[in-house]
């Protein structure tokens, strides 16, 4: 019997596919998320839009807050550690968290190095803006990938940019000649073995979700149609006027993302969505996606 194997780590992400992972700050929100059909929750003290507003250093959440959420639901519970902060990750592993998100939403602890994720029994999900970044994280042991998008903005534009970039690069590598793979690995700053694997299999070796800016059922379905395998919704649910309704609608939209009649039905009467931010007018130092490399 073996625990913490690659099959077991990537396997949990397989079980989350076609689902919605929701940010929650307490047990009540976690129950609402589970009742709405979330396939997992992300436990954190402040949703990204509040982190953005409050400024200062954002760190791992208090263990007792994470444990309260863990006790309140049966679906998997994820929690965030700062980029490069392997001790926060060790603490989350000790708490029995199901997945660690090494996240740019928190303030990075190491500006050069991400966590060496192969050292852990629990699996990690990491953000990316392009295929090179995704493959560097997988090389370090990430068992699931998500786009960074631009968290806390309610603006889908960056998530679309990042998903198109990752999926477009995969298409390009699929149709290459073997001779081109080494130069591509160099250009992407990505491990050659993983570039070669994509050439042979035509897909990422791990599950790929979208995150960062999803605020409506249509946003979730857009990302699914572009080709991701599930979505994270952060501020989009509990910063909206009707969290229950919005949560349920996004879950249904993610399942039947290809069915415009159902998308129209679930988009009705949801009230005011979370307030949005224009990423183009945002100073680069406020863009969370710039964190990590």
């Amino acid at each position: 019997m073996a625990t913490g194997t690659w099959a077991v780590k990537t396997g949990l992400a397989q079980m989350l596919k076609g689902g919605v992972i929701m940010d929650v700050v307490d047990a009540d929100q976690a129950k609402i998320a589970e009742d709405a059909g979330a396939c997992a929750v992300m436990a954190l003290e402040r949703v990204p839009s509040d982190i953005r507003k409050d400024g200062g250093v954002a760190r791992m959440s208090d263990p007792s807050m994470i444990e309260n959420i863990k006790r309140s639901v049966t679906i998997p519970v994820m929690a965030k550690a700062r980029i490069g902060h392997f001790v926060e990750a060790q603490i989350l592993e000790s708490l029995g968290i199901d997945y660690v998100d090494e996240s740019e939403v928190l303030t990075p602890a190491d500006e050069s190095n991400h966590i060496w994720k192969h050292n852990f029994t629990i699996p990690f999900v990491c953000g990316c803006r392009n295929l090179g970044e995704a493959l560097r994280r997988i090389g370090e042991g990430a068992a699931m990938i998500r786009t960074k998008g631009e968290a806390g903005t309610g603006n889908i534009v960056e998530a679309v940019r990042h998903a198109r970039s990752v999926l477009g690069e995969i298409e390009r590598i699929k149709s290459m000649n073997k001779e081109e793979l080494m130069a591509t690995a160099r250009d992407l700053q990505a491990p050659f073995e993983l570039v070669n694997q994509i050439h042979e299999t035509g897909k990422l070796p791990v599950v790929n979700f979208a995150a960062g800016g999803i605020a409506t059922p249509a946003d979730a379905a857009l990302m699914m149609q572009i080709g991701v395998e599930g979505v994270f919704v952060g501020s989009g649910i509990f910063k909206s006027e009707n969290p229950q309704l919005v949560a349920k609608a996004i879950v249904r939209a993610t399942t039947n993302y290809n069915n415009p009649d159902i998308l129209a039905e679930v988009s009705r009467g949801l009230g005011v969505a979370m307030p949005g931010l224009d990423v183009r007018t945002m100073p680069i130092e406020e863009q969370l996606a710039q964190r990590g490399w």
Partner: protein
Amino acid sequence: MTRIGVLALQGDFAEHIKMLSSLGVDSSEIRLPSHLDSVDGLIIPGGESTTIVQLMDNFGLTEQIKDLIFSGLPVWGTCAGMIVLAADITDDRPKPMGIIDITVSRNAYGRQVDSFEAVVDIPKLGETPFNAIFIRAPAINSIGDSVEILATLDEGQIIAAQEGNVIVTSFHPELTDDLRFHKYFASVVADNNFRNN
């Protein structure tokens, strides 16, 4: 030729479809009740059982699937799918469909940090052992008299069972390259020949 539907609301349905297509078995995704019209068998995949049960209710699939199974449609549930098909569960939610006479408990082996792989014997699949992957897996606590045990762990814990045309596994054959379990289910479906009976 028979066709196997795979419930595609949430979870690793694509992996099941890939296994079936490697076997040359026709398959289709089931998201809405109308999709059930042309299938001879059904797989309920791994995923989150609370999510899958809610979406089955939301999209009006629960009763129709129940009726089809009671009229003889072969069905196989892996992990979350096993919870969905069980007669009873040791905690209160979600309410399982009550298809196969087993009682299950959710996340019985612990959280993700306890998820594991184990090599097990499954006599129906021949002598070569099977690499079984357990992810936050449910356990079968008890079975009724008419339920056949297909596999156990070394300690005796039941991990696969069958009652008539209903099969459950607490592990994920769809996450391996070993096609034998899918082949076995496909043979149950072919023998049953649901739409022509």
